[in-house]
């Protein structure tokens, strides 16, 4: 092979590497190309380029594979390093919302395992799987919309509170409790869908509108009445008031406690529903595997809060709120005849869990600082122009 051909192949290899690298790693593609061009020996230059291509190809492929999920995971972050598997794991750990999506999918899968072992009707399994698809679709659609923007959070909380109040007055009544809305033959519980996302969003929102929305939601829980959701409000707002003692937090907490007290004062006579309520204890009686699926699935629900709290100090209030919301739902399921979230039959909690991920940051703050070091597209273009002149 002639020296010219070897040099040409080396340059071609470098160009191929640049073509497959994501924008965030383009400068490294240029680095290898320029370094190759500086190696006097043609054979060594060719080997250098080929080895560089082979070494960075897994990272480039991983980046392209993750690209379709960029709107869910958070855009533009380079994979931090190591093997492809480690890169994906590390990149995921910086993305609380991605962790939440993975936990939601795993928990719903474990719930379906429980339902299957427990002999639940096949329709129940389909409803839970369908709810997951609906929830994740809504998350993808709303994840990048202005509604997820802080400016619109207050208005969104008020709108959700209005829906809860409407359910209290117009919803389907069962034994004196008006918590459900009939949609296509299914009884949907709006509070399980809306209250979690409202509470997690409220942890990031400090304005009168959002506070008014939470107070209205507390009133709706007292009117329905729903002891479990009122307890969720009280517990989450108490945590918010401890970490952030502003007047909005105190006012919301007062409303939450009053709502919970009101629900405690009224008897809740609803019996347990099979595959929905009281499954924390009964699942182990069905089968050991069913019990493990239920408890394992519930543990997964808290994982985004635990990981986010440890890795993203700037947004700890949000992770505390997220954790408290779902811990409260679990406590309610353990203490009374209230739905066991995600792992029991019922799509409302599944959609609610997916929607509550909207309030989690796409990218942990530590990851965000790493991104800020990555040159943006304009910088890259400018630098690339200079490099092309140098290589010409």
């Amino acid at each position, binding site marked *: 092979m002639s020296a010219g051909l070897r040099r040409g192949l080396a340059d071609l290899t470098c160009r191929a590497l640049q073509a497959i690298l994501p924008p965030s*790693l383009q*400068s*490294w593609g*240029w*680095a*290898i*190309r*320029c*370094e190759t*061009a*500086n*190696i006097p020996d043609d054979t060594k230059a060719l080997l*250098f*380029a080929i*080895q*560089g*291509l*082979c*070494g*960075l190809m897994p*990272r480039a492929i991983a980046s392209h594979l993750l690209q379709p999920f960029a709107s869910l995971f958070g855009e533009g972050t*380079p994979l*931090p*390093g*190591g093997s492809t598997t*480690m890169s994906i794991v590390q990149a995921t750990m910086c993305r609380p919302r991605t962790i939440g999506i993975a936990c939601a999918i795993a928990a719903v899968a474990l719930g379906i395992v429980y339902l299957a072992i427990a002999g639940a009707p096949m329709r129940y399994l389909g409803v839970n799987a369908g709810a997951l698809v609906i929830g994740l679709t809504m998350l993808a659609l709303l994840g990048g919309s202005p509604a997820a923007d802080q400016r619109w959070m207050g208005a969104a909380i008020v709108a959700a509170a209005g829906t809860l109040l409407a359910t209290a007055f117009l919803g389907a009544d069962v034994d004196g409790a008006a918590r459900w809305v009939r949609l296509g033959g299914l009884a949907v519980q709006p509070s399980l869908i809306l209250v979690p996302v409202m509470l997690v969003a409220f942890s990031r929102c400090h304005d009168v509108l959002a506070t008014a929305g939470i107070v209205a939601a507390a009133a709706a829980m007292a009117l329905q009445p729903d002891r479990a959701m009122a307890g969720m409000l009280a517990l989450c707002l108490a945590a918010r008031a401890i970490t952030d003692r502003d007047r909005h937090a105190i006012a919301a907490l007062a409303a939450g406690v009053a709502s919970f007290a009101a629900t405690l004062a009224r008897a809740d006579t609803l019996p347990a529903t099979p595959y929905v309520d009281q499954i924390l204890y009964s699942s182990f009686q069905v089968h050991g595997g069913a019990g493990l699926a239920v408890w394992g699935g519930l543990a997964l629900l808290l994982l985004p809060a635990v990981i986010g709290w*440890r*890795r993203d100090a700037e947004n700890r209030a949000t992770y505390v709120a997220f954790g408290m919301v779902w811990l409260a739902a679990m406590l309610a399921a353990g203490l009374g005849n209230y739905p066991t979230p995600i792992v029991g039959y019922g799509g409302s909690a599944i959609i609610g869990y997916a929607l509550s991920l909207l309030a989690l940051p796409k990218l942990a703050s*530590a990851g965000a600082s*790493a991104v800020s*070091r990555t040159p943006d597209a304009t910088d890259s273009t400018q*630098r690339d122009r*200079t*490099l092309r002149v*140098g*290589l010409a």
Partner: protein
Amino acid sequence: MSRTRALSPHARIVLAILLEAGGRWSHGYELARLADVKSGTLYPLLIRLEAQGYLEAEWQQPVDGGRPPRHAYRLTATGVQLAQANPPGDAAILNSRRREATI
């Protein structure tokens, strides 16, 4: 709290070479030769070290006209600490010095 996973022998030797260079800038081909690692091993490592703040990189314009610019690297203060805390094994140092002497 973020954790740094255990460094590979290659990472340790590259860090040691960069540490030995002090404040002097090093280039990719030079590092690959001295550490006896392939560029496919070296660059992912450099990318990771740079992303984690252990390494700084800059583009250097060529001294001779007609040559392309070069990407150069040196350790940051935290990178120096990392390199000092993770020295390569004795055998790796000996091999590295032997190779350096024969270049």
